[in-house]
């Protein structure tokens, strides 16, 4: 971990794939960058994915080298587990107040050996595995986390000092407290990513009540070889699912829950997860109930057809409701559109809800930025300057400007870095002229 300097050319908010790419592209052009991430590790959503569409590359194989590149870059400083308190315009740039949350571990001394984690006897729901797996009360977020430094979760810590006793470097620091930092920055790139609509958003689907109705990010973890189960199993009883359903637009294109827009990636990840299920269990049936299959990107339609040829059933239908029947199985009331709207009750033993994508963070006054009625940051000139926010000197990339797949996020991050670089040049030029 590098020492934090008093001034940076660019502040990147968010250490997901878009934020990392923006930081790399800005630092690549010679600027000093501070990357701030709220979680204890960089990597964002992508590092938790199993494979990525349409190439079925392993997600962490793509994401971890990026993370290492960011961590080792001479011109990038990384601050994990840190929130933005506020940024105020100052001179041509911004004064930024950050709040570094206590890890209770001295980052500089830790050697990432996880002896503390192994010494802790308590299990808490593991965020990285979407709660389906467990972790100790002190834990390294995951095998590919950067930094490889544990974080102590006081909510689950029983304060018995097992971890400190096990640490070979005496770096458990119970005296640590949140610390406020003030940094000057020339420009800001916001790449704060996404959240999904709550599992209970659509009452009739019972995502928050039925054990075997899963969220797609949890499914990614379940499909990963280093995931909570190591196999695809259902959460209610560890059964190998024989019939899996995907309910598309379960939180998108739906005015009733305030997400009227298309979440853009759900069709593709559903197809991808379906293929992965079929690869792991040839005899498991997978059905995708959808409104339209939006396979619009490069190679996506081909991927859609591949999924069908590999036995994934794609059915144009509306799912009215999901009810739990015996043994944790689920019954879906479905209106089959291509059969003239026939209504049927269909049983599955696992259901994945393709939830809507909503903004990962709202500025709430921390940044002088406007948001659109869709909740994402407003972009005044989305066609010609897609990375420029409503505030001068602040740029936006990735899902912060609307749902997006990984390639589009990465490309937009490059654009945001370019805009920030041009802005910094402009500011310097005028400062030079004034002097």
């Amino acid at each position: 971990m590098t020492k934090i300097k008093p001034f940076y050319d660019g502040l990147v908010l968010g250490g997901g794939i878009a934020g990392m790419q923006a930081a790399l592209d800005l630092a690549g052009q010679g600027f000093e960058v501070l990357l701030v991430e709220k979680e204890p590790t960089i990597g964002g959503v992508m590092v938790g994915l199993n494979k990525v569409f349409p190439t079925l590359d392993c997600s962490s194989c793509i994401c971890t080298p990026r993370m290492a590149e960011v961590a080792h870059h001479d011109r990038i400083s990384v601050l994990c587990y840190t929130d933005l308190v506020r940024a105020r315009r100052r001179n041509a740039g911004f004064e930024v107040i950050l709040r570094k949350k206590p890890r209770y571990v001295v980052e500089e001394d830790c050697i990432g050996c996880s002896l503390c984690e192994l010494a802790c006897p308590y299990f808490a729901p593991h965020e990285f595995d979407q709660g389906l797996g467990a972790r100790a009360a002190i834990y390294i977020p995951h095998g590919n986390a950067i930094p490889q430094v544990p974080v102590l979760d006081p909510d689950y810590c029983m304060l018995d000092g097992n971890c400190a006793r096990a640490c070979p470097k005496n770096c458990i620091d119970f005296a640590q407290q949140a610390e406020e930092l003030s940094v000057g920055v020339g420009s800001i790139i916001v790449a704060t990513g996404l959240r999904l609509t709550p599992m209970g958003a659509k009452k009739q689907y019972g995502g928050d009540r039925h054990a075997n109705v899963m969220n797609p990010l949890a499914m990614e973890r379940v499909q990963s070889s280093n995931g909570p189960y190591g196999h695809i199993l259902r959460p209610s009883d560890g059964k190998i699912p024989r019939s899996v359903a995907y309910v598309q637009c379960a939180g998108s294109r739906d005015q009733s829950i305030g997400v009227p827009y298309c979440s853009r990636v759900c069709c593709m990840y559903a197809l991808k997860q379906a293929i992965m299920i079929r690869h792991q269990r040839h005899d498991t049936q997978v059905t995708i109930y959808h409104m339209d299959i939006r396979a619009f990107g490069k190679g996506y339609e081909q991927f859609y057809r591949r999924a069908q040829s590999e036995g994934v059933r794609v059915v144009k239908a509306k799912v009215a409701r999901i009810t739990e029947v015996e043994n944790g199985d689920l019954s879906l009331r479905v209106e089959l559109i291509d059969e003239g709207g026939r209504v049927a009750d269909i049983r599955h033993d696992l259901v994945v809800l393709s939830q809507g994508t909503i903004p990962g963070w709202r500025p709430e006054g921390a940044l002088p930025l406007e948001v659109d009625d869709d909740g994402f940051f407003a972009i005044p000139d989305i066609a010609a300057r897609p990375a420029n926010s409503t505030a001068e000197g602040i740029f936006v990339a990735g899902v912060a400007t609307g749902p997006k797949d990984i390639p589009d996020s990465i490309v937009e991050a490059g654009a945001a870095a370019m805009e920030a670089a041009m802005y910094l040049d402009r500011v310097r030029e005028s400062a030079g002229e004034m002097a």
Partner: protein
Amino acid sequence: MSEPKRDWQKDLKVFRERMGGLSEEKKAWAREQRDTLKAIRQALAGGPATIPQIAERTGMPGKKVLWHVMAMKRYGKVAECGQAGDYYLYELKEGGS
């Protein structure tokens, strides 16, 4: 390094005070987890079992059993050892108690 050596025991004491000690709720949670793990270990003492089998032996819901068994598996206390129908079998690992 000129910094004085960290005294974690002292720090922990202060930390404990700052956290207001252990709440009853938290103590109960820890107790329940201990009991759950103990029950699962007992259920597995007789040999490998599936999640529904453990659930039946312990009288706990499958979801809870699965979660704890997977926790034990992650930290090397339980291992997978074959399959029975649509379920995997789990067994206690030596030295994993």
